[in-house]
């Protein structure tokens, strides 16, 4: 039965996340935007609380690890599971603060990667770790099949060499999931991910970036020089299966893209909620029944933003719902990220414009959200990469045909 409301079983979780966002993240939002690179110690207590909720089951499996496609019994019914719980709670947390959500201990994108591709033994061994994700290199961004970081098998260790940039929480996390190639000549099939624990000799954080937004979240440059990693830290299969190609590593993205879309949805809603209120104070009430053209330009603009937002939110929920119900969702995950990424920017920037100097000033958070949102249309696959994926799927074209 078609129903697109917040699932009943997740309502308490969403309310809880909203209260946390409102009462823990918002009060320190500006503080860590200004104090870039200082550790938000308040998050330790929050992370402990989230761990507790996860243990008790009250979190409905939500969080970075909620993306794992485990073999639960299939009763033939429609499931609202941990993927949906994750996108909804992450959106709420990003309504609070996207930078702080990205800094949440043990909730890194590396954790999602581990959850997506680790075997049961690895899952158990890496339980409780805070894992960052290291894919991008100075010369390689969207074309992640071209990475130059190498992993060479030497006895029961892999030796990793290379430079990774834009590693979110790369300094704070306990470990880093690194993408490296076993043999560059074998192309994308040879790319594997490795869990490298902090303190492993040969791995060092070179520097932290100064950024446009999400300044509460550290972004590190990490150098690997003859870094020896236990062979059992290779996630998934060590075989280089040319037929299967890139699919293994890329499967992570089907799971993480809806999460990033949810971040954009949450951040944009913060802007909409505040702008609606500021417009009301300025005497503009948005009327949903009167034709937009008969209302003020500000109200008409707001309606357009809200409509785009609704589309982004439902595309995100769709992608997560499909994952929960074990339907392939690469197409829908990319649709969600493309739409949410671009409307996230449009909404937050338009809200600044609607609110004038009040929106532009640091006395409100609107300008911050307009800075924070931009990264969400870039990381985990840029807008253009999402369009490429959607286009290839819709048109049935290979990456050789549609470059």
């Amino acid at each position, binding site marked *: 039965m078609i129903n697109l409301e*917040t699932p009943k079983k997740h309502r308490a979780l969403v309310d809880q996340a909203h209260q946390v966002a409102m009462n823990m993240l918002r009060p320190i939002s500006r503080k860590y935007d200004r104090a870039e690179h200082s550790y938000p110690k308040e998050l330790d207590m929050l992370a402990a609380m989230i761990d507790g909720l996860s243990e008790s089951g009250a979190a409905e499996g939500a969080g970075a690890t909620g993306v794992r496609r485990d073999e639960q019994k299939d009763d033939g019914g429609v499931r609202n599971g941990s993927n*949906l719980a994750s996108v909804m709670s992450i959106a709420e947390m990003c309504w609070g603060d996207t930078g702080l959500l990205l800094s949440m201990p043990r909730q890194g994108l590396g954790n999602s990667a581990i959850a997506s591709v680790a075997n049961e033994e690895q899952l158990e061994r890496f339980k409780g770790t805070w894992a960052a994700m290291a894919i991008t290199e100075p010369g390689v961004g969207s074309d992640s099949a071209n990475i130059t970081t190498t992993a060479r098998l030497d006895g029961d260790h892999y030796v990793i060499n290379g430079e990774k940039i834009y590693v979110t929480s790369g300094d704070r996390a306990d470990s880093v999931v690194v993408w490296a190639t076993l043999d560059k000549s074998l192309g994308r099939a040879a790319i594997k991910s490795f869990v490298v624990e902090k303190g492993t000799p040969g791995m060092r954080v070179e520097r932290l970036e100064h950024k446009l937004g999400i300044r509460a979240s550290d972004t590190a440059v990490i150098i690997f020089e003859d870094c020896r990693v236990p062979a059992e830290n290779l996630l998934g299969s060590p075989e280089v299966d040319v037929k299967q190609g890139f699919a293994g590593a890329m499967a992570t993205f089907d799971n993480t893209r809806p999460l990033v879309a949810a971040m954009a949805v949450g951040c944009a809603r913060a802007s909409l909620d505040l702008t609606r209120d500021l417009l009301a104070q300025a005497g503009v009430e948005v009327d949903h029944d009167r034709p937009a053209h008969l209302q003020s330009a500000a109200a008409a603009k707001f309606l357009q933003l809200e*409509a785009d937002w609704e589309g982004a939110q439902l595309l995100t929920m*769709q992608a997560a719902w499909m994952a929960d119900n074990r339907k392939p969702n690469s197409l829908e995950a990319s649709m969600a990220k493309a739409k949410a990424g671009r409307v996230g920017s449009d909404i937050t920037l338009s809200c600044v414009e609607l609110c004038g100097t009040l929106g532009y000033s640091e006395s409100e958070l609107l300008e911050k959200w307009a800075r924070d949102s931009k990264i969400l249309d870039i990381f985990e696959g840029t807008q253009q990469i999402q369009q490429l994926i959607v286009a290839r799927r819709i048109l049935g074209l290979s990456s050789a045909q*549609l470059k």
Partner: protein
Amino acid sequence: MSLTNSLRPGGRNGLARKESRDPIGYAVAALNVVAQSDLIDRLGLRKKTEQAVFTSTRGGFSVVTKAGRTFAKRGAQKPGVRVPSAGASGVFDLTPTEDEQMLVDVVGEFATEVVRPAATEADEACEAPVALLKSSLEIGLPILGVPEKLGGISEERSAVAGALVAEALARGDMGLAVATLAPGAVATAISLWGTDAQQATYLPAFTGDDVPAAALALSEPTALFDVLQPGATAVRRGDRYVLNGVKAGVPRGGDAELFVVGASLEGKPVLFLVEAGTAGVRVEADPSMGVRAATLSKLHLTDVEVPADAVLGETDGSTYVECVRLSRLAWCALAVGTAQAVLDYVTPYVKEREAFGEPIAHRQSVAFMVANIAIELQAMRLVTYKAASRAAQGKDFAREVALARNLCASKGMQIGLDGVQLLGGHGFVKEHPVERWYRDLRALGVMEGGVLV
């Protein structure tokens, strides 16, 4: 039309009122009048084919409405039969129910096999083929929203089924979808808000073998028309109401036997049931940019007297507003269907069409347009479904339908534009249907009334 009248400055021929004619302008206009005269035809100076322009539908009919049937008064002045809201579901789900899926399959096949092949000709003729209208009755389109107890097929609020059906039909053709859905809009409105007497009087006609054409008339031909404040008026006179005004965008005006008309009564928008045979009712063809197969018309009401019990629903504006929302919802579903037709059509086209030695689909500028059509279309669909499911569950859906309409108007039109653009010159000619979809998709954001779920 006299010469002086046709040369009156402004207001006609797409001229704004401030336009004025100088002496050369008058000379040119006079020449134009001569050029239009019969004389040159009699002298055989003009190609015969040009006269084809003046076909009955295009030139416009303006008739006293079809006498139509008399709907014999039955039933009592008490609330009518209502179907319950669909049970609230706590589960996020995008799967239609089995019944809905069956309905969509049947209607989808009808859209593919019957509607699409008839679309071009119906668009030209500004008329839906009789056989097509007849077979639309066979699949039960008009009684989708009529309670089972009253001979319909609705056991609970069917806004979702209605939206899915409208989408499936419009994937065939929007104009024919509107033509086939128009009677159902009236039947559904009477089911939702009619008294026992109104239901007993009118619904048997819709559930029987000889279903009348009928139309929900809310729009009016004024710029910046506010549907919530109709210019048409209703004034109480004794035990009757007197209606005056002009409605526009009325589907199948020529053969409609029953109208639901929006008019202001004591400052509030109210719905009235008006039988086509009532004195003072006149219909004028109003062929428009698109949705032409629906025979869009203007409905002129001049001192039309209707009985006091012609009021449909509440007089405080609440019924009217709900009607507007449900109608907008139906238009959104139509936009989703037509936008899907565009995507279905351009996808193989850009893969087959070659330029510079390879399919144009291999170029990102082309492929990304297709990707964006797919993305925005799915967003339109989900937002529309959300509004429909809230309506079916009896929840407030004002916000959701407003957002759906906003999205479907802007993104739907963009999809229409891109559909033509992707075909280039081929998109601009009538050999391909995308130019029709472009015209049809502009109806979104313009039309109020006509259809309803």
